[in-house]
């Protein structure tokens, strides 16, 4: 395997909201490698630690333990961000600037020349579908437009690695489709894309590999094809030439059965019972029109993984074991929608 574009080893983040509150685990022992030119989906429920991971990778928070790197440079080192782009969830911009001025500002931070900045800004606005809004101030933008703007600023330096936090949030179906296409285009151009999402259909549509995070811990990671093909959740069989007597027998053995004209539709709960049904049908003289094992969908996989993790004792926040910070009182895994940060101004209000 090539040198990973993104790497995390035993990455750990602890949040200490204040001295009066107990510290909480934001991320626990994350091991992760994202290969170059890979589209990597990062899944998890709200509060699972997706944004925490991303913030640790892009240098917005320091990890309390472990190590992370981007393109071989330690995360947090300013140089690691030279070939990286990051779009936060619900991005915010300077309200009084228009999109060109905004992108011009971000271009300056990379030391780009003025002609390059303006050329790139125009191209990016075209690419994210904001070309028609180039003279409007960002304060007039809708949530979806801000999201697109977030993607545009993340690409200003033509990065090799793009880290996107919930890039589809706030977008309508057309917008989501366009962003998916954009991600696939970037992959075509050899870029690495790491994005978090809880919209599983989006992940399924564009990702090569995915990881599932549950309550600050990585519970699963692998190629989507491997993750999903490893488990068949049912079989659908379509038969023709089924004698009434055979149909009766098959209906009893199948999970469900129905007739539509000359065809009989059967379903079985797994491949084993599906195979038995198929054997009986063939022996009984029926013609097999179709035999389709149904794979587990990403949604089903995600829910199963979470249930399995819960069953191992991490599910109920009141009963799951608390992580420990060395030398300190037990630390509770973080939960809830927001990522609790020590410096979050909301906390100090």
């Amino acid at each position, binding site marked *: 395997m090539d040198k990973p574009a993104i790497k995390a080893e035993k990455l750990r983040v602890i*949040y200490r909201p204040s001295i009066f509150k107990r510290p909480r685990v934001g991320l626990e022992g994350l091991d992760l490698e994202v290969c170059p030119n890979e589209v990597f989906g990062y899944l998890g429920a709200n509060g699972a630690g997706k944004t925490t991971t991303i*913030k640790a990778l*892009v*240098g*917005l*928070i*320091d990890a309390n333990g472990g190590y992370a790197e981007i393109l071989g440079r330690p995360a947090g080192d*300013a*140089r690691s*961000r*030279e070939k*990286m782009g*990051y779009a*936060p969830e*619900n*991005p*915010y*911009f*300077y309200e*009084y*600037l228009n999109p060109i001025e905004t992108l011009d*500002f*971000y271009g*300056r*931070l*990379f*030391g780009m020349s003025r002609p390059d900045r303006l050329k790139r800004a125009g191209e990016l606005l075209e690419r994210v579908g904001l070309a028609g809004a180039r003279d409007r101030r960002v304060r007039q933008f809708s949530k979806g437009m801000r999201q697109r703007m*977030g993607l545009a*600023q993340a690409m200003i*330096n033509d990065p090799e690695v793009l880290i996107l936090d919930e890039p589809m949030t706030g977008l309508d179906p057309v917008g989501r489709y366009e962003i998916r296409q954009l991600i696939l285009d970037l992959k075509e151009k050899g870029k690495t894309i790491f994005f978090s999402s809880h919209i599983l259909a989006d992940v399924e549509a564009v990702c090569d590999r995915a990881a599932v995070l549950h309550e600050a811990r990585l519970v699963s990671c692998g190629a989507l094809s491997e993750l999903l093909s490893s488990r068949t959740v049912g079989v659908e069989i379509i038969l023709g030439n089924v004698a009434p007597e055979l149909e009766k027998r098959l209906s009893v053995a199948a999970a469900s059965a129905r007739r539509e004209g000359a065809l009989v539709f059967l379903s079985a709960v797994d491949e084993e019972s599906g195979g038995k049904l198929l054997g009986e049908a063939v022996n009984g003289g029926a013609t097999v029109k179709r035999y389709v094992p149904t794979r587990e969908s990403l949604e089903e996989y995600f829910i199963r993984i979470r249930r399995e993790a819960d069953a191992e004792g991490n599910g109920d926040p009141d009963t799951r074991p608390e992580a420990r910070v060395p030398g300190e009182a037990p630390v509770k895994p973080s939960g809830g929608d927001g990522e609790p*940060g*020590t*410096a*979050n*101004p909301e906390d*100090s*209000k």
Partner: protein
Amino acid sequence: MIGRVWAVALNTFREAVRDRILYLLLVVGIGAVAFSKFLGEISVGDHLHVIVNTGLTAVSLLGVMISVFVGTGLIYKEIDKRTVYTILSKPVRRGEFIFGKYLGLLLTIAVCTGLLSIGFLVYYRAVAGVADDRATGLLYWMHGGRITVPLLAALVFIFVEICVVTAVAVMFSSASTPILSAVLTSIIFTAGRMSTWIPEYIRELARRGESGEVKSFFLQILYYITPNLSIMDLRDEAVNIGALPGDLAWRLLYAVSYSVVVLLVATLVFRRRRF
């Protein structure tokens, strides 16, 4: 590095000049300069002295108010509005961000106090005095006070003082809320202005024989950590057209050094912050 600092500074300037509070403060400053003539007229003695004093105070007040009202929310706003996410995820070091924000605000203050200073000097030179009945034409309007070197030096050092106060405001803003930062900056500003009185007060305590050892200790700490802003106040020299102190270069060096140290502390605090 300089490019990134300048990018942040320029953006801060653009942001600040669109802030309505700036114009409100500028109007207050202009009002204070205009009011100086009235104060001069009702005062006993040379009314030009009063006008110089009031005008310089107005320029200083404008700078300090922008520093406190805008400076103390400078970093906090970036965090609160999350604009900091897209900046610090670029190859911008936190120190570069702090220095950029500081320079951007200084640029804003320089423009505002510069405009008010020019307005004040024109006003002082042209119409602050009493019209001479014999003067005609342009001379009719040129009957104000003389623009002297001490007066210009006083204006420059007002800006130097503001540089120090702004650094303090940015430092508090990197660690605290705007309200708390404004209170703390105001305290530091007031203590800094009274800085030269502190040793005298300590001596006075000792002379009176009051048991003020703890008090003296804390006063000494206050004396050493607060900027000595009183050495940047050249209003007496400007009003009385006296000779300028010989150590102006040292005073300038002190102000620059103090500001740099405060900004380094701000950077250290900001580097520890999580977003």
